[in-house]
């Protein structure tokens, strides 16, 4: 048996944990730079808020209806997510954290000890709420796909009280008959419309498809989904997450960049983020990509990129910064207001299996990078940084409606009235 535990409107709920006066009220959370709405709770959606809408289009609606608007407070979300996952993990022998607000549990090998699954699921909900003040829904099923379907039902259908267990055929058939294929994990818009053309409108019909008589154009992944819907375990989680083969750090600017110095700073900042990630997974980069662009909505949108190869490969920030500095003339064109810039590390290879080159010695300063990473790990990111990224970053991310970092910054801990 598997369970999927998923927080309801996680970003919005996280904003309510230390602001009890916001509980029960409509909230939206904006993306980086306060660009568009990335999260909205039930109350905000009921007032007509649409997810992924640009904020300027919804601003009026928010103001007239008293909808609370927050910038993304990732420092807070990351910490509350971690705590939530710890609590959820107590309820099963094996856990897989799928995203910032979703976690799978596996009850393999201990099914007999849980006499009532629905009751166990309720206990998870209650514990998470009591200990972290985050609301979650729990879906359970014989496969990960079924757990995901169950979670959808627990969350969206009234009368389920946040818990849905799909363990008997009768309930499964009833639920399947009322769901459309797009609600199933792994079925996208494309396959869903293809299914519609073939007369398959419900998950019940989908689950009854014969694997060998599938319409053309459906792949193995799709067959596995059908098997999973029928209770046959095909998907499991890998216990170790594969290393990334590419690392990108990119962002749109809080304030457009029109000067060379600032462009260099912003690129240096992204280079630092990307190389720190590469070092964390012990990868070396053989190809560096640096790109700069104005907004695609500009009158004459323009973008430009350079590629640079490293032999031997590197993950030393200063080597990357030197390349950016040496090429800034190529990247910067006066008169362009840069909106999006970024750094990509491509062709990553493992540091452990590095091939040394006799005639081409490397220049990276591994001990320095180690100390830099340790300082930033211990005292918070950017406690020590390369001066190239600038001290007064005028182009930095705009977070106008940012709430305090209640759980990660001593200066922000909540006041308790005595």
């Amino acid at each position: 048996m598997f369970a999927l535990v998923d927080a309801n409107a996680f970003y919005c709920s996280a904003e309510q944990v230390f602001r009890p006066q916001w509980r029960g009220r409509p909230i939206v959370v904006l993306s980086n730079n306060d660009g568009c709405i990335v999260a909205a709770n039930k109350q905000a959606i009921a007032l007509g808020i649409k997810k992924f809408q640009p904020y300027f289009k919804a601003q009026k609606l928010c103001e007239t209806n008293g909808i609370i608007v927050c910038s993304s407070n990732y420092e807070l979300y990351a910490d509350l997510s971690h705590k939530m996952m710890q609590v959820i993990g107590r309820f099963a022998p094996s856990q897989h954290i799928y995203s910032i607000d979703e976690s799978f549990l596996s009850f393999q090998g201990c099914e007999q000890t849980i006499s009532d699954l629905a009751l166990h699921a309720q206990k998870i909900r209650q514990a998470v709420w009591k200990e972290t003040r985050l609301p979650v829904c729990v879906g359970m099923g014989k496969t990960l796909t079924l757990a995901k379907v169950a979670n959808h039902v627990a969350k969206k259908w009234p009368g389920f009280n946040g818990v849905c267990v799909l363990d008997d055929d009768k309930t499964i058939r009833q639920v399947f008959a009322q769901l459309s294929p797009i609600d199933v994990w792994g079925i996208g818009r494309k396959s869903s419309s293809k299914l519609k053309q073939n007369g398959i409108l419900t998950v019940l019909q989908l689950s009854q498809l014969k694997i060998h008589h599938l319409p053309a154009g459906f792949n193995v992944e799709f067959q596995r989904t059908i098997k999973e819907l029928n209770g046959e375990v095909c998907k499991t989680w890998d216990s170790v997450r594969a290393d990334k083969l590419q690392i990108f750090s990119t962002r749109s600017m809080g304030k457009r960049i029109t000067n060379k110095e600032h462009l260099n700073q912003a690129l240096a900042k992204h280079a630092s983020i990307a190389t720190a990630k590469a070092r964390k997974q012990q990868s070396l980069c053989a190809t560096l990509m640096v790109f700069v662009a104005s907004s695609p909505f500009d009158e004459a949108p323009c973008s430009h990129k350079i590629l640079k190869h490293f032999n031997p490969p590197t993950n030393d920030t200063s080597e990357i910064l030197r390349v950016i500095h040496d090429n800034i003339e190529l990247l910067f064109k006066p008169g362009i207001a840069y909106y999006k810039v970024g750094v990509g590390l491509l062709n990553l290879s493992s540091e452990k299996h590095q091939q040394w080159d006799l005639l081409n010695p490397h220049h990276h300063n591994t001990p320095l990078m180690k100390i830099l990473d340790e300082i930033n790990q211990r005292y918070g990111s950017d406690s020590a940084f390369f001066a190239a990224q600038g001290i007064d970053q005028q182009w930095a991310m705009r977070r106008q409606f940012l709430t305090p970092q209640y759980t990660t910054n001593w200066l922000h801990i909540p006041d308790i009235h005595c």
Partner: protein
Amino acid sequence: MKFIRITASAGITGFESPASDYLQLPLSLDALLVEHPSATFIGKADGCSMQGVGIFSGDILIVDRHVMVKEGDVIVANLNGEFICKILNISQRLLASANPHYKTIAITEADQFTIEGVVIRSIRCHRASQLLASTI
């Protein structure tokens, strides 16, 4: 995970410490003060109503959401959208202060009231802490 480091030594490195077989982890304030890390939050007391139980304005409160609430516990509650610290009187539905100058609050049907956690420790910095410097 914390480790006790034991370095392997060879050659003329002096004498092995006679205490090396008796190494223990140093004392950790986290272990003393926080019982349930994932269910705990830290707040700052603001006001004088709890001086009778030794909580003064500016003290650090460690609030545990895991432990069961008992009669007479010092708790943090959400009362009408505000975090407050009081002594819980379950039988009479009261929030008592620990200072005669402050009145007792009766919880009524009209109040929005939830218990947010139990204050399991409070900390006073007799010399200002660097980390909290600009809050004092």
